[in-house]
């Protein structure tokens, strides 16, 4: 009974739903298509409903962090996170429940905290990449030479200064992306697709260890 409920039925559920979707792909049966559309929305509802699980771990991990290290610095750091939880809760309560996501107050937080942080991280990413460019792009081996030549050509072709004044740079950049680069991307995507299909089939047939035994503990 225990393994039936805990392991066999969920595995069966995966297989049944999976093969139903496979069948929908090939057979012109309206009911199946409707079922697939329904499943798509079901998945979306499960996504939205289950977000609270993450919230729980966000709370507990930060609290555990603070409990282990109760210095002033850590208190400030953890405190500001919990303060944000509090502030956003207040915003939601006082500006119209969940509809508050459309309020100017909510937007203020989004535009002034969330957006600048995300964009700043991309800026950091660029600076780190400058460091890598300088460190890695040296003609040491075949790999790094290709990286240097192809990457360099494409960068030059994307910058108006070089594109306008050095003849042939744009053509070179286009050539690199349409020729050799596509020669790498296309088969890599193909191989990855083959790998993905096989993993999918293996799982549908109930032989995938990672999903099969999950959570039996």
């Amino acid at each position, binding site marked *: 009974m225990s393994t039936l409920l805990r392991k066999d039925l969920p595995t069966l559920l995966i297989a049944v739903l999976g093969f139903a979707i496979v069948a929908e792909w090939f057979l012109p049966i309206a009911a199946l298509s409707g079922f697939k559309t329904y499943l798509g929305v079901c998945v979306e509802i499960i996504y939205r409903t289950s977000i609270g699980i993450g919230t729980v771990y966000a709370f507990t991990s930060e609290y555990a962090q603070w409990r282990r290290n109760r210095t002033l610095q850590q208190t400030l750091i953890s405190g500001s996170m919990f303060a944000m939880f509090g502030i956003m809760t207040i915003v939601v309560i006082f500006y119209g429940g969940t509809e508050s996501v459309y309020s100017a107050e909510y937007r203020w937080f989004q535009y002034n905290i969330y957006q600048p942080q995300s964009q700043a991280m991309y800026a950091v990413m660029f600076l780190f990449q400058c460091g890598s460019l300088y460190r890695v792009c040296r003609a040491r081996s075949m790999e790094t030479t290709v990286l240097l030549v192809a990457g360099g050509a494409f960068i030059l072709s994307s910058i*108006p*200064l070089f594109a306008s004044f050095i003849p042939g740079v744009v053509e070179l950049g286009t050539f690199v992306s349409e020729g050799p680069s596509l020669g790498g*991307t296309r088969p890599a995507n193909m191989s990855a697709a083959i790998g993905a299909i096989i993993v999918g089939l293996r799982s549908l047939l109930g032989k995938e260890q990672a999903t099969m035994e999950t959570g039996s503990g």
Partner: protein
Amino acid sequence: MVEGKKESIWDKMGSIDYRIIYAVFIVMLSIPIFSPLGIPMKVSQPVQDYYNAIVNLPPDSAILVHSFVDLSVWADTGPILIATWKTIWDIAEEKNIKIIAYTSLSDGALKMSDLLLDEIKPPQWRADSYGETWVDLGYIPVVNEPVQASFAADITSVAATDGHIYDVGSEWVGTPLLDIPVVKDIAARGGDPNVINVYDFDLYIWGSWGCTSPDQWVRQFWTTGNPLYELPMVMMTIGNCVPNVMPYYGADKPILGFVPGSAGAAGLELLCGHKGEGIVMADIGDLAGIATVFFLILGNVSYWGKRLFEKEER
């Protein structure tokens, strides 16, 4: 290296402190902000194709527009969206192009509501005919593939009503989709008049900065369907997705044209004649390009200098 030996010039060239590199790039990017360089630009072929696909739409076409807004990449992709909408609004009234728009991220719903009131304000005739010539469904979470599939087969399955949140055409908010005249008109175009699906459109303008999205959308909008239906698309994306879009790009392929990042946006702005942030951003990159080349050369000179001239000493 032998202990106590002095660092050679090659070593010094090859091991510059990262902080210096970062500082150089920050300075190089700041200079054009103080005084723009104004270097002329070329329009690349994919951008030209993107623009042509929109302006050369035959009369009475219907287009589906995904307003691609992600606040975290707004600096790079915002100019594309703005230029695209300006291009769409510039299409003459006589052509009678019908538009259904939506956004797929929660950030987008908020930003679009600000934009449509200000920067990309629809022309008066469009604003007056909301619901008859165009409609904005607001935020529909069409990000995951199963939902995309549902969306392709029946748009009402994920967006039952008009859900936009700004003042233009607000009387339509909450109206069931098929009760809106423009949706009804588009639904009547192909197949079942009571179902609005992607087969009813002539062009899909969409964007994503997820580079595997082309695979997903092509899977769902180009190869799905019975009978086999192929909805042409044009795409707003970011620079690093170019290799992922390339396999699908071409006149007889799913993606007719695409705009890669703010550099592409500059081209689109030139084409549609509304200069904006894209051109400013492209201009800023010029000096940093010089720094990039400088550091590339420096690293290689250091490596080869060390390899060629320090051989005997070892």
